[in-house]
C-alpha cells in the first residue's frame, strides 16, 4: 500500500482528537498561566486582570537567580548521575538471559509505582540518626556513633536519582537491545578491551539516545518539589518549591505563574541549545 500525501481536510481527521486533547489539556491551561502571570496581585486578597510586568520584575533578583541556578544545577547533576549509572547497568542487563532481564525490568517498574511522598519518607528514615543506615556502620565498627545523613545535598541527590533511574533505564533499554551486537564483537576481535569498546564504540553509537535521556531526566528532575523539601535544607529548595509556596500558601497566583513561565522558558532555551550543539557536532 502506497502512502499518499493528504488530499483534503478529511484526511487530517485522525489528528483532530489528539489535537483537541492537546488544546484542552495543554494549550489552554498554559495560556491561562501566561495570562495570569501578567495579572495584578492584590495583597491580602487574590488578583485582578491587568497587564503588568511587576511579577516578572520581582523575580529578576540575585536571590531568585541563585535559586534558579541551584535548581538547574541539581537537575543537571541528577541527569548526569542517572545516565552514568544507568548506561553500564542497562548494557549489562541487555546481555543477561531473557528471563533474568524480565525479572530486573519488573523490579524496576515496581519502583515507579511508589509515590514521591513514600520515596521521600523512606529515604529520610534510611538516612536518619535514630533508625538509619549509619547504625549499621556503627554495628560493624566503621563509625563511632550514628550520624544523621539528612537533610543534606547528598540526601536530595540520592532521593532524586533513585526516583529517576527507572525512567532512565527504560528509555535506554530499547536502544541498547536493538544495537547491532556485531559492533562490539568487531571491536573485541580487533583487540579492544571490553571497557575500551564500551566507551569507544557503544557510547558514540548511542550518542543521540544518551542526549535524549539526559534531556528527559533533566526536565523530570526540574519539576521535583517534594524531595528537596523532605530531604534538603532550605538552601536545597528548588524553584518549584518556591512556586508552590507562592501559589498554595501565599495565594499569589500571578507571581507563581510568572516564576513558572520563566522556568519553562529557561528549560526550553537550554534544551534547544543542547539540540543545536548536538546537530553541529554531527555535521563536523
Amino acid at each position, binding site marked *: 500500500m502506497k502512502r499518499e500525501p493528504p488530499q483534503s481536510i*478529511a484526511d487530517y481527521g485522525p489528528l483532530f482528537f489528539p489535537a483537541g486533547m492537546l488544546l484542552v489539556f495543554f494549550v489552554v491551561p498554559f495560556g491561562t498561566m501566561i495570562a495570569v502571570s501578567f495579572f495584578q496581585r492584590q495583597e491580602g486578597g487574590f488578583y485582578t486582570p491587568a497587564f503588568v510586568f511587576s511579577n516578572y520584575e520581582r523575580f529578576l533578583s540575585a536571590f531568585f537567580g541563585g535559586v534558579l541556578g541551584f535548581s538547574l544545577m541539581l537537575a543537571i547533576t541528577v541527569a548526569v548521575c542517572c545516565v552514568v549509572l544507568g548506561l553500564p547497568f542497562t548494557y549489562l542487563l541487555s546481555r543477561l538471559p531473557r528471563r533474568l532481564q524480565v525479572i530486573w525490568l519488573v523490579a524496576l517498574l515496581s519502583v515507579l509505582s511508589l509515590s514521591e511522598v513514600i520515596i521521600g519518607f523512606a529515604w529520610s528514615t534510611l538516612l536518619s540518626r535514630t533508625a538509619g543506615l549509619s547504625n549499621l556502620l556503627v554495628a560493624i565498627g566503621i563509625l563511632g556513633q550514628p550520624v544523621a545523613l539528612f537533610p543534606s545535598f547528598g540526601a536530595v541527590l540520592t532521593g532524586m536519582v533513585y526516583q529517576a533511574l527507572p525512567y532512565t533505564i527504560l528509555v535506554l533499554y530499547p536502544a541498547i537491545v536493538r544495537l547491532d551486537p556485531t559492533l562490539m564483537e568487531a571491536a573485541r576481535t580487533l583487540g579492544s578491551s571490553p571497557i575500551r569498546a564500551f566507551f569507544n564504540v557503544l557510547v558514540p553509537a548511542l550518542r543521540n539516545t544518551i542526549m535524549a535521556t539526559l534531556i528527559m531526566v533533566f526536565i523530570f528532575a526540574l519539576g521535583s518539589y517534594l524531595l528537596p523539601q523532605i530531604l534538603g535544607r532550605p538552601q536545597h529548595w528548588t524553584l518549584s518549591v518556591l512556586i508552590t509556596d507562592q501559589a498554595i500558601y501565599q495565594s499569589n497566583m500571578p507571581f507563581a505563574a510568572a516564576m513558572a513561565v520563566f522556568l519553562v522558558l529557561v528549560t526550553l532555551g537550554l534544551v534547544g541549545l543542547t539540540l543545536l550543539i548536538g546537530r553541529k557536532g554531527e555535521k563536523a
Partner: protein
Amino acid sequence: MDNIFKKGVSRRTVLGTGAMAAGVLAMPGILHAQDKSLKVGVYGGYFKDSFDKNIFPEFTKATGIAIESVAEPTGEAWLVQLEQAAKAGAAPADVSMMSQVAMLKGQTTKLWTPLDTAKIPNAKNLLDRFVNKYPDGGVAGIGAVAWYITLVTNTDVYKEAPTSWAAFWDKANADKLGLLALVSNSFLLEITAKTFFGGTNALDTEEGLLKAFDKLAEVKPNVRLWYRDEAQFEQSLKSGEIPMGQYYHDVTGLAASEGHPVRSTFPKEGGVQDSGCWALSRASKKVEEAHIFINYMSQPSIQATLSRKVGTSPTVKRELLDLNEKEFAAVSSDIEPIIPRYDLYTTKADWLNQKWTELIVG
C-alpha cells in the same frame, strides 16, 4: 480505500467526543439530588477523624441534617481552592474551618457570606475576639475552636522541660529544632518580639520587623528541619531525631497520652494562640443549614466536648463551660497567650514573605 477508512475514523471520533461532552454536562444534575445535608471542611487527619467520630453523628441526630465532611489542607491552600471554585459558582464545602489569616484574606474578596446572628443565638456565648467581622459590621465567621502552638520537646533527650522560647536561641541546641516553614503559620516573628523586644507591638514598624528578622537569623544554625507537613516533624519528634521545636499543643498532648516520649510546654512568654472560624462560602446554597450548624457548634456543651475529645481550646466564655480545672489546663494555660499579628499578614504579606524566604533560604 485508504481515504474512506480515514473518514470513518474521524466521524466516529467526533461522535464519541460529542457523547463524552454530553455526559460531562449531565453530571452536575446528579450532584443536585441531595437534600438536607451540609458539606463541612475540617483539617484532614486527626482533626477530621475526631469530628467524624465525636461531633458530626450527634449533630445529625439532633437536627436531621446529614454532614459530609471534607478533608481540607492546612495553610491557605484551601482558601485558594474555595476562591477559585467560588469564581466558577461551585463550593467544594459549604462551611469550612478557616484559620485567621485565611479568614482575613477571604474577607478582602468577600468570599464569606455574611452570617445572620439572629439565627445563631449561641453566638453570644463566644469571646469577642473569636467573632470575625467585616468592616461594615457584618459577621464573616464564628469561632470554631482555638489551639496553641507551644514549645515541644522529646522527654528522652530533654529530661527537664525548657521554660522559655529563648531555648531556640541556645547554642547548645545546634541542629536540634523543627520549626514551621512559613512566616504566616509559624508566627516566629511574634515569638521573637515577645521574648526579646517586650511584646508584639515591637512589630508595628518596618524597623521593628527588621530587628526581629535579625534576631531570628540567629536561630538558623539550630534548625534541622523547616517543615510544611506536620507528619514530617511529629515523627521526628517522637523518635528523638529532632528533639525540640514548635508544634500544636493538642496533637502533642494526644501523642503523649499514647505513650510517646514527648511533652508540650507553655513557655513563660506564653504559647501562640491561633484559632479557626466557621465560614460560609458565598457559592454555597445551604445558608439555612449552615446557620443551624454554626449555632449548634457554638453551644458551651459542644465546646466542652471538643476540649475533652479533640483537645482544642474553647472559643466560648470560660464561665459557661463545665470543664474542671484539670480539663481546662490540659487545653489552655493561665499564662497570657501570644496573639499573632494577623494584620501584618494581609497588609505586608508579600514583603514579609520575601524577607522570610530570603532569611531561611539565603
